[in-house]
C-alpha cells in the first residue's frame, strides 16, 4: 500500500492510498496532528481508527506567491463533508487567496487542490463538474447592473442547473427571508451596499451548490436581520443537507456560533486547525474571543496598554 501524502484535520488525519484518499478518525492527543510526524502517525491511526470516505475539499502542499511575496507556504488540510470551516487570520495573510485557490480562480504555484477527490483543473470536464458543486462568493461580488435582483438569483440558479420550479419557490423564500421582496423587481444598480450583499448571499444559497466558499459573508453592510438570517442558515445548512461551508470572517462571536472547525493562518502557514472547544482549551482561555486574541493578535493587547499609558501621560 503506497502512501504518498497526507493531510490533517482536527478530528483525524488521512493519507493518499492508490487512487483515493483514506481518512482515519482518531481520538488522540493533539500531538498526532503535527505535520512533521504525519505519515508515521497515520499508520498508527490506522490500527485504531475508523475508515471513512474521502473529504470533500483537500488542500495538499499548496504554496502560492504574488511577485516575490509568498502568501501561502505548504498549506495542507482537509474539510470533511457537512462541516463548516472558518478561516481566520490577520489581514493580508492569505485567507482570500486560499479561498480563491479552492474556488479555482487561482492555480497554486505548488501543491494541489482536490474537490470530491478530483484534482482542480485536471481536465475541462472535471473542472466543470467541480464548478457545478462549488459556489464562490467573493467579498466584492460582481453584479450585472441593469437587471433586477430576482432576475439575478434566477439566472444564478439556472446556471447551476437547479430545477426551475424549485428555483422559483426557493427564490421567493430567500427574498422574503432577507427582506428583499419589495425591491426584488428593481434594478440591482439601485440597491444599497447591504442589499447587494444580501442578494449575493441569496444567489449563493439559490445555487444549491454542495460546497459554499464564502469570503467575508458577514461584512458589506448587512443589517441585523440579514446577519441573523445568514447566521441561522449557515448553522443549519451543513447539518441538514450535508453541505460544506468554508468561510472567512473577522467576527469571533459569529464564527463561534457557526463554525465546526477553525483554521488560523499566519504568515502563509497554518498556525492552528482545530475545533473551537479545542482552541479555547489549548489557549487556556475562557472564551473563543480571548483565545483568538492570544493566537492571532497577541501584540494588540500590549499595544493597547502602551497606547493608553501614553494617553494618561499626555
Amino acid at each position, binding site marked *: 500500500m503506497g502512501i504518498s501524502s497526507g493531510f490533517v484535520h482536527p478530528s483525524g488525519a488521512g493519507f493518499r492510498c492508490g487512487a483515493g484518499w483514506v481518512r482515519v478518525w482518531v481520538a488522540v492527543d493533539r500531538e498526532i496532528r503535527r505535520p512533521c510526524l504525519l505519515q508515521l502517525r497515520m499508520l498508527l491511526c490506522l490500527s485504531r481508527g475508523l475508515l471513512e470516505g474521502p473529504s470533500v475539499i483537500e488542500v495538499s502542499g499548496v504554496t502560492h506567491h*504574488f*511577485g516575490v511575496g509568498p502568501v501561502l507556504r505548504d498549506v495542507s488540510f482537509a474539510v470533511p463533508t457537512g462541516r463548516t470551516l472558518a478561516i481566520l487570520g490577520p489581514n493580508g495573510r492569505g485567507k482570500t487567496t486560499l479561498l480563491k485557490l479552492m474556488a479555482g480562480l487561482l*492555480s497554486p504555484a505548488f501543491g494541489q487542490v482536490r474537490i470530491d477527490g478530483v484534482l482542480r*483543473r485536471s481536465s475541462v470536464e472535471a473542472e466543470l463538474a467541480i464548478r457545478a458543486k462549488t459556489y464562490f462568493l467573493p467579498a466584492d461580488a460582481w453584479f450585472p447592473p441593469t437587471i433586477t435582483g430576482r432576475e439575478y438569483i434566477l439566472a444564478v440558479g439556472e446556471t447551476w442547473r437547479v430545477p426551475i420550479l424549485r428555483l422559483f419557490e426557493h427564490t421567493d423564500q430567500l427574498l422574503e427571508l432577507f427582506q428583499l421582496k419589495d425591491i426584488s423587481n428593481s434594478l440591482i444598480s439601485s440597491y444599497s451596499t447591504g442589499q447587494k450583499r444580501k442578494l449575493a448571499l441569496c444567489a449563493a444559497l439559490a445555487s444549491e451548490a454542495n460546497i459554499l466558499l464564502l469570503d467575508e459573508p458577514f461584512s458589506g453592510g448587512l443589517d441585523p436581520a440579514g446577519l441573523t438570517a445568514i447566521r441561522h442558515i449557515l448553522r443549519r445548512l451543513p447539518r441538514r443537507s450535508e453541505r460544506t461551508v468554508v468561510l472567512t470572517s473577522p467576527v469571533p462571536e459569529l464564527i463561534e456560533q457557526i463554525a465546526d472547525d477553525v483554521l488560523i493562518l499566519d504568515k502563509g502557514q497554518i498556525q492552528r486547525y482545530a475545533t473551537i472547544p479545542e482552541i479555547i482549551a489549548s489557549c487556556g482561555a475562557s472564551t473563543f474571543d480571548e483565545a483568538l486574541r492570544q493566537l492571532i493578535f497577541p501584540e494588540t493587547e500590549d499595544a493597547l496598554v502602551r497606547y493608553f499609558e501614553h494617553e494618561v501621560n499626555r
Partner: protein
Amino acid sequence: MTAWHRMSYPPRAWFVVFVIAVVLTDLLAGALWLSFSKVLVEFQLKRFDLAIGLFSIVLCIVAAIALGVFRAMRCPLRDSGYHEWLAASPWEGCEKTPFGPCAPHRLDCVPLGVLGLICVSHALVFGYSELTTIILWGSWNGRLAILLSIALMPTFAFLGVWVLSITSAMLQWRAWVGILQSWWVAVIVHTGVWLGKEICLAAIVVSVPVLAVPYLFWLQRALRELPGKSLAMPVAGSRGTGLMNDMGMAKKLSPENQCLSPSGYEPMIVRYFRENRTSAISNILLLGACAGWFPWEKSAIPGLWMLLMILAMVRLLIHIDRLHSPLSLPARWATRRWIIPAYDVVFLPSMLMIVVGGLLLQLGAWGLLPMWLAVPLSVSAACLMGFLSGRRYVEWSLTAPVAYDVRQVRK
C-alpha cells in the same frame, strides 16, 4: 420575448422615456402644422414642423444605438467581473450566457422592427411632400429601396454600434481581427477615391451587416473557449496543468516586487508577442500588406516618419517604464560614462526601427522604390525590428544594472 432576452435590454424607464419623447415630438409637430400651415404655404417658408417630425427618426436611431450598447455590455469578453463570475460557475461556452444575450438575436427583430416602422411612418407623414416625387414618379424598385433603407436605419445603427463595441473585445482574443479591419478600411478608402463618396458611404453601410456575420461566428468561438481561458496573464511561476490556462491575475504588490520576481516581470504586451511569436510576425506582415492597399502619396512621408518615431518611442517606453537607467543624463555627463552597455542595449531596437524603417521610406521618397511597396516594407520592417531584435525583456531586466522608479514604489 423571453425573460433571458429582456435582460440585455435597457431598463424599462428608458422605454417609457423614449415613447414619451416620440409622442411629444409628434404632438408638437402636429400642433405646429395645424397652427401655421397656411402661413407656411402662403409665404413658401421652410416647413419647420417637418424637421421636428423627422426628429422622431433620430430618436429611433438613438434608441437602436442604446440597444446596441447594452447588448455589447453583456459580453463577458469585455467585462472582467462577469468573466471571473463565469470562471467560477459551471457555465459552458456553448450555452447561452446567463445574464442575457451578448450578440444580436433573432428576437431583436421585434424592437428593431417596431423602430423601423416608426421611422417609415414618420417619413411618410412628415416627409410626404419630399417623398411624393419618388413615390409617385419613381420606379417600384426606387420606392421599395427608399422605404426599406429608412426602415432599416435602426437595425444598421444597432449592428454598427455592436460591431464597433465588440471589435475592441475581439482584438484581445484575436489580434488578426484588427488586420481584417485595416483591409476593409483600405477597400472603403479606395472605393471613395475611385468611385466617389456616395459609393464609399454605401460601402460603409453595407460593411456593417457584412462584418456582423463573421463577428457573430468568432464571438461564439471565443465564448466556447472562455470557461478555460483568462483575460489576465498567468501568474508568474504558476504551474498550469496544460489543459487550461491559469485564471489568476498577479496581484500588483508594487512595481519593485514585480521586477524582483524570480521569474522576471514582463509587460503584458511583450509577453503576448513573445508567447505568440508566429502570430505576431504574421500579423505584422499582414499589417504591412494592408498598408500597401492605401493610395500613398509622397506628401505622406513626413507623417510616416512621425509614425515611425512614435512606434520606436512606444517600444522604448514599454521597456524602460519601470526599469530606469542607473545613471541619468547629467550623471553620465558628470561621470563621463556615456555608455552603459548592459543597460543601453535596450535603445538599439528602437534606433533600428527608425533607421531601417526610415531608410525604406526615403527609398520611396527618392523614387528608388514605388510608394505602394516602400510604405508596407517600412511599416513591417520597423515593427519586426521592434519585436524581434534586442535581448529578451526578462533576460535584460534580470541582468541589466537597472534602477527602479522610486516614485512608483512609494505609491
